[in-house]
């Protein structure tokens, strides 16, 4: 592909003290991609999402968003960039003291200052998209894990982002709800032509959602391919991860597990 990537992680090295979490990552995300990043728990996958958002800064290397160098942006420009990127957290990260409706209204009220009526319509529309109509008055604590994930996705959609980052969107959910979330991701990204980066270690979900898959292992991207090619990869690490066997090069949790995610 010769087009300019939407996001380019360029030779990224990230260290936390002595521990090297990412060791020379080079990864491009193109418009329209549904890129799934796979890897062991604690391997640094979620860290990559935080680098894209500028929440973490790489030790060396460059994070580019279109032509912008993320770590060189001023605070106001970084906030502007973040408002164009939606993030769905592993544990939803909804503001627990605010109702579902208030959670959804928050980014629009704070950043766009639209009229109240317009915000209400946008809330209704986005709750409908994720199948959560009528829950605007509820508190996050009154919702199940799957419902919270869907509300979190609706909140991410409020700013009409061009990129959505998903951190373990199906972790801890039963298979049926996981499928609902997967289908929602596919339907939404196709309908709104949104690019997405999905971090997961659940293979079934990954193959269902991905248009491209990358494998992170020991701080490096060791495979980056379309799902069909990824499934039959000759790389023994990828093969072991896809098949889920105990025999192979992956023998233990990554050394940076306690700090990377």
């Amino acid at each position, binding site marked *: 592909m010769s087009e300019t990537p939407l996001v380019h992680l360029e030779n990224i090295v990230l260290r936390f003290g002595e521990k090297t979490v990412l060791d020379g990552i080079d990864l491009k995300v193109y418009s329209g991609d549904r890129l799934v990043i796979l890897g062991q728990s604690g391997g640094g996958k979620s860290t990559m999402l*935080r680098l894209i*958002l500028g*929440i973490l800064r790489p030790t060396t290397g460059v994070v580019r968003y279109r032509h912008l160098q993320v770590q060189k942006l001023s*605070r106001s420009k*970084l*906030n*502007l*960039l*973040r*408002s164009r*990127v939606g*993030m769905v*957290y592993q*544990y939803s*990260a*909804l*503001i*627990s*003291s605010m109702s579902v409706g208030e959670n959804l209204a*928050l*980014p629009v009220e*704070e*950043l766009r200052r639209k009229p109240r009526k317009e915000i209400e319509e946008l809330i209704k529309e986005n709750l409908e998209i994720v199948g959560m109509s009528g829950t605007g008055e509820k508190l996050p604590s009154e919702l199940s894990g799957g419902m919270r994930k869907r509300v979190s996705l609706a909140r991410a959609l409020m*700013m009409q982002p061009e990129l959505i980052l998903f951190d373990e969107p199906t972790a801890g959910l039963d298979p049926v709800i996981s499928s609902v979330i997967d289908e929602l991701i596919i339907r939404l990204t196709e309908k709104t032509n949104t690019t997405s980066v999905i971090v997961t270690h659940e293979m079934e979900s990954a193959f269902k959602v991905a248009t491209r898959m990358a494998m992170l292992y020991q701080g490096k991207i060791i495979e980056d391919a379309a799902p069909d090619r990824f499934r039959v990869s000759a790389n023994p690490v990828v093969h072991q991860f896809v098949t889920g066997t105990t025999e192979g090069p992956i023998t233990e949790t990554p050394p940076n597990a306690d700090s990377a995610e």
Partner: protein
Amino acid sequence: MLFAQTDRTGVGSIPLVLMVSFFLGLTMALLTGYQLQKFGTERLVPTLISIAFTRELGPLLTGIVLAARIGAAYTAELGTMQVSEEVEAIEAMGIGPLRFLVAPRLVAIASLMPCLSVLSIIAALVGSALISWAALNLVPDAYFDAVLTSLIVSDIVIGLFKAMFFGLLIGLIACYQGLTVTGGAEGVGKATTDSVVISITTVIGFDTLFNVMVTRITG
């Protein structure tokens, strides 16, 4: 957000500030009154209470009450938000957590501390007036006349300025402790305790420093 914080910090703290100040004023008047009675100078009680509370005890007592009640709440709230990734989510949306979470809390506590301090002074004066009437035979009219005679504008201004400064200190310490929490629920508990201890110690420390400076300047 600012209105909610102001309501909780200010209106919510009124009963506790009034009660604590009323009883402290009453006790102070009683104890000093009995001592001064031995020398026949119990009429000095209103002067003593009014100066002590306007310059010193009103802001200090309100500061201690707010450090325990509001500072702890700020730290626990922000700490819980921090460990559940809510603070990061706010940052990831492009909303500055300092502007959205810290600024309303600081403005609320710094602006309401002087108001609560005034209420504290009034409650203490009422408490001490009542006990002076009951135990020292000082009628309220005479008591409040003595209070008005002994109060000077600079004492009131210094007291209110101190109250605002203490509020700012408590808010800053509480928010900082909350936003730097690590280690889950245990971390939140530790940060909340630290917040109260550090706030109270800092307020008393700055109060002492302030008094030394003011005494030096005014001679």
